[in-house]
């Protein structure tokens, strides 16, 4: 393997590691902040000391998660400047704007309203405090909006024009950042945080029931966690359906990889369960699956909301059959030709560079015209074969199934939790197996959430910016050893943070006393929340 490819691989591993660790904290912040706001709303309406105690308990866990997770995302921005400097420059005019807005909003909203949340119990009115709690939740979601808008643009780059003199894609339409891809991605990611927080709240509450303490508190929490989690999960599924339609239109190769689909058809079935054939390649006749169980016409319905519609597979796309953004099946440019046109775009850019050095304006204009004609395929010029433009099918395929199956499990989980807590509270209180299942489900929810990101990010490979910039071109040419060293450094730092989070949370949870949480006594002591 060349040094460049080793650097690409280690830089990708490093970015994946930091993103995965960062996403351990983020969805809990997004979901728990709303959950706490709901609990406090009940307290303000009822003035019940028990609800105040419940709010303060979960607010404390929210604070721990927020404090440990805060700023871990900054490391990703460090990596942009060091490991991905070509990418940062190439798209900086577009990518920078949402990130800057996110940074400013996050700083001002979170630093202001979180302070009121934690310091303000006895210093501001209940109504003002509640407003601060809701604004903290809103601020967290707005922060996520800008990050997800930036991410969605990389998957579906629109509203820009390439300027070869600046060597940048320049934003021409800010509002086009809010494409269907971005809107679905935002709601899908943020609402999945509600579901994750719901599982977390129910799992921790189950621990109290297992211990035989704080029963009333646990039941209150399970009710809020169950309803919020169920609502969040149903909305996540709804926006997931919207995301699937967008992926089918804007990233059909990702959809084909998610399904392990090589040859598409009208009325295409959806693979429910399968084992991929490891010998299958896009250019051989092997069966894609060792075994499969499929839902007839399922993929056509998922992709187009039309049971008889055509869904292209990997081979179809390589041969130039695809969708328009309107969902029509069309013949487009085959991948082999895209590679040729990408190479022509590179050559035009080299011509532009030479003309620029020679200060030959006419030659610059001529080269720019040539470049514009082939620019939509610029990224393909880096590939030696069409196979390089195909995402890693197994990781994308299995991650998608892990996400969907666990999503189905958690739908059942919330339903059962709500039935038990309302209709069979004694069974919930006494059945240890149920309590253990609830507790052990907590890490599974994180697996589900991370699997979703793996579908999104591995499925869009080999691109950092769809069709324009593959990872091998986006990366800075660093010594592989240097990237390896920082990879392990991050692995160490993040693991220490994770251990700190879990141990501080466990300590706080185990310290909770029955008299405080069930009946709300002692909740107005000055330092019990922060």
């Amino acid at each position, binding site marked *: 393997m060349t040094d460049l490819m080793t650097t690409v691989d280690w830089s990708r591993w490093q970015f994946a590691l930091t993103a995965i660790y960062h996403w351990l904290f983020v969805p809990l912040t997004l979901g728990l902040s709303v959950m706490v706001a709901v609990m406090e709303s009940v307290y303000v309406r009822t003035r019940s000391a028990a609800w105040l105690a419940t709010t303060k308990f979960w607010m404390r866990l929210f604070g721990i998660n927020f404090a440990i997770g805060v700023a871990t995302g900054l490391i990703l921005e460090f990596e942009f400047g060091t490991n991905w400097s070509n990418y940062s*420059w190439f798209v900086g005019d577009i990518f920078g704007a949402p990130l800057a807005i996110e940074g400013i909003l996050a700083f001002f909203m979170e630093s202001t309203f979180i302070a009121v949340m934690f310091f303000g119990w006895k210093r501001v009115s209940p109504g003002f405090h509640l407003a601060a709690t809701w604004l903290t939740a809103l601020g967290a979601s707005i922060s996520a909006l800008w990050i997800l808008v930036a991410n969605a643009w990389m998957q579906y780059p629109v509203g820009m024009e390439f300027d070869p003199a600046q060597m940048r894609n320049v934003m021409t339409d800010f509002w086009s950042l809010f494409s269907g891809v971005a809107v679905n991605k935002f709601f899908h990611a943020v609402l999945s945080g509600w579901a994750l927080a719901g599982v977390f709240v129910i799992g921790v509450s189950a621990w109290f029931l297992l211990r035989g303490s704080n029963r009333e508190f646990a039941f209150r929490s399970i009710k809020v966690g169950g309803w919020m989690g169920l609502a969040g999960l149903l909305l996540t599924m709804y926006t997931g359906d919207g995301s699937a339609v967008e992926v089918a239109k804007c990233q059909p190769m990702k959809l084909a990889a998610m399904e392990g689909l090589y040859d598409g058809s009208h009325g295409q079935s959806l693979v429910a369960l399968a084992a991929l054939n490891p010998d299958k390649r896009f250019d051989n006749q092997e069966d894609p699956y060792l075994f499969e169980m499929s839902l007839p016409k399922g993929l056509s319905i998922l992709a187009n909301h039309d049971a008889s519609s055509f869904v292209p597979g990997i081979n179809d796309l390589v041969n130039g059959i695809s969708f328009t953004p309107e969902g029509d099946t069309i013949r487009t440019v085959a991948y082999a030709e895209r590679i040729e046109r990408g190479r022509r775009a590179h050559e035009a850019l080299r011509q532009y560079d030479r003309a620029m050095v020679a200060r030959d304006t006419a030659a610059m204009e001529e080269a720019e015209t040539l470049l514009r004609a082939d620019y939509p395929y610029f990224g393909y010029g880096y590939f030696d074969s069409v196979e390089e433009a195909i995402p890693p099918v197994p990781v994308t395929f299995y991650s998608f199934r892990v996400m969907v199956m666990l999503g189905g499990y958690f739908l059942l989980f919330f339903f059962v939790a709500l039935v038990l807590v309302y209709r069979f509270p004694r069974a919930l209180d006494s059945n240890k197996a149920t309590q253990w299942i609830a507790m052990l489900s907590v890490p599974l929810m994180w697996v589900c959430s991370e699997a979703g990101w793996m579908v999104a990010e591995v499925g869009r490979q080999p691109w950092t910016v769809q069709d324009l910039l593959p990872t091998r071109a986006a990366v800075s040419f660093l010594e592989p050893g240097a990237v390896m060293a920082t990879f392990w450094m991050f692995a160490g730092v993040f693991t220490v943070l994770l251990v700190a989070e879990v141990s501080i949370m466990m300590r706080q949870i185990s310290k909770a006393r029955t008299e405080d949480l069930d009946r709300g006594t002692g909740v107005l002591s000055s330092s019990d929340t922060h």
Partner: protein
Amino acid sequence: MALTLFSSPFVRVWRFYRDGFREMTVGRTLWAIIIIKLIVMFGILKLFFFPDLLSRDFDSDEQRAAHVRSELTRR
């Protein structure tokens, strides 16, 4: 005059944060973690391991653009 100064919004905000920090319990540990984390991130990682390469190696945007153009057309 003194009364006006002490009841100004700035002073009240200052007292709000000061008293809040003073009364923290688990928050002290969390703030310690946040501060250590920021020192490690900005004082070590950013300073020694994660420079902004294009800002560090080039003086002008024209030079940076030329470098990226060269990088993206020779791979």
